[in-house]
């Protein structure tokens, strides 16, 4: 049981209306320490979690957007966002935060963590996982 497993975190809910987005992120951060093969999927209303320019002052909650930017430092570098979900909500990649990581296998070149994929590609990603965590 010491082999590396493929863990997928599926995010389908908007942030702040419920706590799932925040507490899901807390699992990802803790899970990063276990050296497994981690992938994050954002689809349906989950894409709102990555929208930039949030200001939570008036709702009195902590803005946890900066944590997504730190994911690269935790070696969480595979972040898939579904194209159809963005389009249905009038969003484009430009509306999302610019998440980066440094690729240690490529002389620490800075690369994009977010990859926009079709629903069909997302289905393929889901299909090949060992553990799918949804909240």
């Amino acid at each position, binding site marked *: 049981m010491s082999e590396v497993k493929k863990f997928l975190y599926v995010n389908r809910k908007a942030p*702040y*209306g*419920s*706590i799932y987005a925040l507490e899901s992120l807390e699992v990802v951060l803790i899970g990063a320490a276990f050296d497994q093969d981690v992938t994050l999927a954002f689809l349906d209303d989950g894409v709102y979690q990555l929208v930039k320019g949030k200001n939570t002052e008036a*709702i*009195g*909650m*902590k803005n946890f957007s900066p944590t997504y930017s730190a994911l690269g430092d935790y070696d969480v570098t595979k972040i898939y966002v579904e194209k159809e979900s963005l389009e249905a909500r009038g969003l484009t990649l430009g509306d999302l935060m610019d998440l980066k990581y440094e690729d240690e296998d490529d002389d620490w070149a800075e690369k994009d963590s977010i990859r926009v994929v079709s629903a069909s590609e997302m289905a393929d990603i889901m299909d090949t996982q060992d553990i799918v965590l949804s909240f």
Partner: protein
Amino acid sequence: MKFTILINEGPYQHQSSDSALHFVQAALEKGHEIFRVFFYHDGVNNGTRLAVPPQDDRNLPKEWSALAEAHGLDLVICIAAAQRRGVMDADEAKRQGLDADNIAPGFRISGLGQLIEGGIQSDRLVVFGD
């Protein structure tokens, strides 16, 4: 005007307790009267004094307690919903033979009739939930 507020969800999991808190604060600032805040379903979980959220997060039960103290709010937890979910005041814990209670200051436990009375006595009743 006189308001009664119904909160159907616990703190944190859903935004309803936050939204209700901001609504009540705004209503008070405008000089309205809050006749009662009634906590039902998982809403009863707003009334625990054992919650210790992270330092940089809001403490919703404490915010309700503080608001109740500052404005004399009547925060009522439904007894039937509270029994199901384990929210107890000292009397109720004793009556049930339990060794502990967990109710926060400013909250009281009472029956569903308090919700209906709130509806009858208030000009407006607003519901916050999932």
